[in-house]
């Protein structure tokens, strides 16, 4: 089978998953205790006005009917109205998505760039100081609550040392946001040649990104170390060494390429964690992404906004898993043959 058709088949497999996600988010909104109509009607509602609102929201119809309406709205990209801001949920999420993506992707980049060399070195020099360091980072990483790491970093780097700017959003007040191109402020600032703005956005980004990266570092480093150890102990590696290949080639081409598969799988899992941890980090750093939007919505019980957030995060995660699987097919020739 060709590479393209495998990737296409994998995309088709995602459809039932997406359907399951939509059903769950629908059930979360409709089938659980509490009467949204009474909630929307407010404190001074009469039974008549509640009935009227219920009819208007379509809540007087059967669940299958309501589900059909929900699907129809979704297909038009309509996630409902936020009751606290009165804006369409989809538009607000889209507006805030770049901030969250900028944070998550920067953090993942930092964490991959640190964890993989650390894991590889720890495996190559087993039981050396770097292996001990790797073990320490992994143990600390799984025990540290993200929000706590963030606060510690703020205290040390902002309050004590003054190296980092105040943890108040994406850009300090002195700078005007650059014209919107990608939504990533650092890139947009560079594109608009506003160096000071880009630098300020970069400084604001660093602390939350490091916090999130520390959180995702542990599983990645542990998996890299384990996968490398396994690859190093394998027979094909002994053969490669016996054949007289250079040490660098044995390590990077033969060992690392084979170790990459479990690392990529872990990367997908880590992304799931970091989408959740993102919410916490955004709260700590007052980062105006979709996580803090969801928290604001949770505080005032704004159901449509929370459900829209859950749904879009889940869809984002499915898309990412698709990307990971695609990467897998590109990296591992065996997947192509088996598929």
């Amino acid at each position, binding site marked *: 089978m060709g590479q393209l058709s495998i990737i296409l088949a994998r995309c088709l497999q995602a459809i039932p998953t997406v359907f399951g996600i939509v059903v769950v988010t629908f059930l979360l909104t409709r089938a*659980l205790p509490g009467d949204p109509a009474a909630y929307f009607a407010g404190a001074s509602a009469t039974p008549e006005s509640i009935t009227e609102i219920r009819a208007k929201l379509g809540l007087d119809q059967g669940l299958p009917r309501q589900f059909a309406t929900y699907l129809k709205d979704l297909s038009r990209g309509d996630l409902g109205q936020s009751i606290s801001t009165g804006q369409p949920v989809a538009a607000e999420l889209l507006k805030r998505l770049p901030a969250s993506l900028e944070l998550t992707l920067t953090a993942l980049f930092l964490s991959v760039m640190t964890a993989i060399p650390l894991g590889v070195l720890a495996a190559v020099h087993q039981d050396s100081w770097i292996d001990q360091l790797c073990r320490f980072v992994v143990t600390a990483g799984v*025990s*540290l609550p993200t929000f*706590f790491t963030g606060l510690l970093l703020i205290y040390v780097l902002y*309050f004590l040392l003054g190296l980092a700017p105040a943890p108040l959003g994406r850009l300090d007040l002195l700078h005007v946001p650059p014209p919107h191109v990608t939504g990533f402020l650092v890139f947009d600032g560079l594109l608009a040649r506003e160096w000071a703005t880009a630098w300020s956005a970069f400084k604001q980004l660093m602390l939350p990104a490091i916090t999130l990266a520390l959180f995702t570092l542990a599983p990645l480093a542990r998996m890299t170390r384990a996968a490398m150890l396994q690859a190093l102990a394998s027979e094909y590696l002994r053969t490669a060494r016996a054949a007289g290949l250079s040490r660098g080639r044995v390590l990077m081409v033969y060992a690392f390429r084979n170790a990459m598969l479990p690392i990529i799988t872990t990367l997908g899992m880590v992304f799931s964690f970091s989408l959740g941890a993102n*919410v*916490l980090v955004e*709260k700590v750093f007052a980062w105006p992404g979709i996580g803090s939007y969801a928290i604001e919505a949770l505080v005032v019980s704004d*159901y449509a906004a929370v459900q829209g957030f859950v749904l879009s995060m889940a869809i984002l*995660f499915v898309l990412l898993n698709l990307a990971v699987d695609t990467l897998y097919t590109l990296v591992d020739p065996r997947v192509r043959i088996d598929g």
Partner: protein
Amino acid sequence: MADTSFMPTLAIAVPRRSAFARGFAHFRYVMTSNPVTFFAFVLFALMTLIALFGPALVPHDPLATLADKALKPPGAGHWFGTDHLGRDVFSRVIVATRLDLLISVSAVAISFVCGATLGAFAGYWGGWFDRLSGRLLDTIMAFPLFVLAMGIVAAAGNTIQNIVIATAIINLPFYARVARAEVSIRRNAGYVQAARLSGNSEIRILLLKILPNTLPPMMVQLSLNMGWAILNAAGLSFIGLGVRPPTAEWGIMVAEGANYIVSGEWWLALFPGAALMLAVFIFNLLGDGLRDLVDPQRRT
């Protein structure tokens, strides 16, 4: 474990001791062979004692506010300082232990029991039930789990009980998957067929012959999971779900202290955060020890 039934000579050769004595000997062996595990067990015992008796021992009322003593740094009278309302941080951290442990232990217990049952039935009988439960678990796993927990709490209502349920639901797939895999590989094992031929009912075989053998890998899963469950529950209360002020709970205390970090009052957030970290750390260490205890073959 099951192998002994096929080696009667060996079973006779070993001097007979009660199951309890053998268990205790093994426990003592694991404890003395690994000081880290011993240390973790001591810390765990201490934490349990604090959870049980802490509220009776604390020097101050965790809810008593003293406006004239607000935001005092750690000192002789208040070991961990006081918060913005003049409450004693030390007393609050100690008292919170019970609630935090209660939330995470009950959440993990629920997902362990439900997940093991679901997975065992799916793995033993297969068929439509297996497919249905598999789909359900896949759907749960398709969500970023913390985000799903937020959604569940938002929909079901903002209470501690729902925090427990949400944490249990997001942990469920891990247990169910391990149980399913472990049961399905033993479904037609020799000792199971022997039990079937000697007239045991299917449910009896599953509960008494297969499930006990799946416990060691389930324990490993439990050990990997416990710390994560505490972090999740504390994360939920950090963003303002479940536990309401003025209740003392580590997550919400860190959240309250977060506002004072930028002005340098570090003790408000540091101590509850450190307590949380220590609890997770103890559970992670303990998990490794527990694995050694129930599964000697995997000991490293």
